[in-house]
């Protein structure tokens, strides 16, 4: 701090500190604190705020465990609260999206970093970046066009003779979440590809050649040399894709079936349709907790630090 004052003087240092203080205090810390505080308050009309009924309670969190519905898993039927179910399904299908994106991206990241010729590389990267510049809403909408009942996918499959009748993709074939998973993988796969590509790129190609010269089969070279080196990139990609998927409101609303309820949609319903901001706050606290637990889990699993991921 003395260092700053010596170089830029008291006035400028004051401005720097004020800017940073405004950001961290007014835009980051206090809003999260407000959300935490509000999540324990009841939803009341404006006139009753601060009145005798405005007391702290866990009622908003209790709503999470209301309204059990039947849910069958491996033939066993369980009674699960509807919002808990939506929460668990969101976690499961986000993890599925993450795994699919990882499987799709890893070979391509390796290709870009180690096989593609250096002359064509910038062009390839530019090609890959184009869908990223077209907004997420439109990328999801593109799949809405493809998956509609009379849409090109059904027409193509029928023309090929693979199916006799058009399929309602948005209602799901295997599960209610088919369309959501397909579209989320499409929308977020590049957030997996780029960090893995960056991390493989920094691997010395001689190491791969040494492994091959010493007789390692290709899969062992990847398992023992490339993947350990790419770990920070893989961790960062997994965190990005999981968080984007679990937090997406756009994709489930645009292509999701009416029977598939994504957790952010539940939060939005509390917030917007019921105008019950307090319960919405409680639910987003639960969601935030999930995200923190997931990030910590990934950091432990891959043994990397937060600053590796934030790159």
């Amino acid at each position: 701090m003395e260092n700053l004052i010596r170089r830029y003087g008291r006035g400028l240092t004051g401005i720097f500190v004020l800017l940073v203080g405004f950001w961290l205090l007014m835009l980051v810390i206090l809003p999260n604190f407000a959300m935490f505080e509000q999540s324990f308050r009841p939803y009341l009309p404006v006139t009753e705020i601060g009145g005798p009924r405005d007391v702290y309670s866990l009622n908003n969190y209790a709503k999470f465990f209301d309204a059990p519905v039947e849910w069958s898993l491996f033939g066993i039927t369980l009674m699960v609260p509807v919002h808990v179910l939506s929460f668990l399904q969101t976690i499961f299908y986000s993890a599925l999206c993450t795994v699919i994106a990882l499987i799709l991206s890893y070979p391509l990241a390796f290709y870009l970093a180690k096989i593609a010729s250096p002359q064509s590389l910038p062009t390839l990267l530019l090609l890959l970046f184009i869908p990223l510049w077209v907004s997420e809403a439109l990328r999801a909408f593109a799949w809405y066009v493809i998956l509609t009942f009379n849409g090109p996918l059904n027409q193509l499959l029928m023309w090929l003779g693979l199916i006799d009748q058009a399929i309602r993709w948005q209602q799901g074939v295997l599960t209610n979440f088919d369309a959501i998973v397909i579209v989320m993988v499409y929308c977020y796969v590049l957030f997996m590809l780029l960090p893995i590509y960056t991390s493989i790129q920094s691997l010395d190609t001689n190491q791969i050649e040494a492994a091959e010269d010493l007789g390692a089969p290709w899969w062992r070279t990847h398992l023992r040399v490339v993947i350990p080196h790419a770990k920070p990139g893989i961790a960062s990609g997994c965190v990005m894709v999981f968080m984007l998927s679990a937090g997406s409101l756009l994709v489930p609303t645009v292509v999701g079936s009416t029977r598939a309820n994504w957790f952010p949609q539940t939060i939005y319903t509390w917030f917007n349709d019921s105008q019950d901001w307090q319960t919405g706050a409680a639910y987003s606290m639960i969601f935030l907790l999930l995200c923190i637990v997931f990030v910590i889990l990934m950091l432990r699993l891959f043994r990397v630090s937060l600053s590796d991921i934030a790159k």
Partner: protein
Amino acid sequence: MTPSRRFLAHFYMALFVIYLMLPLVVMAGAAFNDSKLPTIVPWKGFTLDWFSALFADGRMWRAFLNSILVALAVVALAVPIGTAAAIVINAISGKWRATLYGFMVAPVLAPGLVIGISTVLFWNSLGNTVGSDFILFRPGLHLSTLGQVSFISAYVMLLVLARLQSFDPGLEEAALDLGASHAQVLRRILLPHLYPAMGASAAVAFFQSLENFNVTLFTRGGADTLTVYVFSKVRAGITPTINALAFLLICVTLVLALVYEMKRRRKARIEAERAAEARRAEAAML
């Protein structure tokens, strides 16, 4: 690597690019189909009607204007904040640095809807506490701006901090010794070094803001931005005007990409020529 595996790798790359592009082509194609629904099959004939419908859509243009205004406001706030944050974090050391850095990068990882909800709740309860119904405290695009600034500043901070690593503080010492004022040190020495990073982060901030959906949806009040407008259109059952809009946006993206690619190629060619000339000169000297 065997030739067959090499071929497989190229093939996979080509397949992946097709996978990324085909949905966009289908969506853009549907803009020219003379059908009430956004689809390319059945093809009912070529039309440009959806483009005229798009240009007549006043609400869409207002949403577009809102998006641009919010993005400019985000750039104006996030670039100074992020730059100041990078300078501060670069200057301090010790145990406080890790804590402060943690607080600064946390918004990057925070989900958009949490940022949106917390921003609305905070300003709303602040309004209730001071007992004011002033417009600042109610949902609206100004809160969308603040919510977006909270995480976009972190991107700016990371970009500027990376650039600061290559800065030589000795230059500032020298300027001070030679009698420069503090403001001059900042304006003439430090900021010129940071301008490339600040420019890049301004572009990132602008496009991040245009793209943003989650934060905006919860904070916007009744106002629309372009992404929210597209979303509400899709939800309410759509006509191919959205496809026409998508087609135009894809065209803009392609033109920008093409310009960038041509510039890069020309630069690469000039550099290759220079390197060849240097080699020739070297060979001539020997």
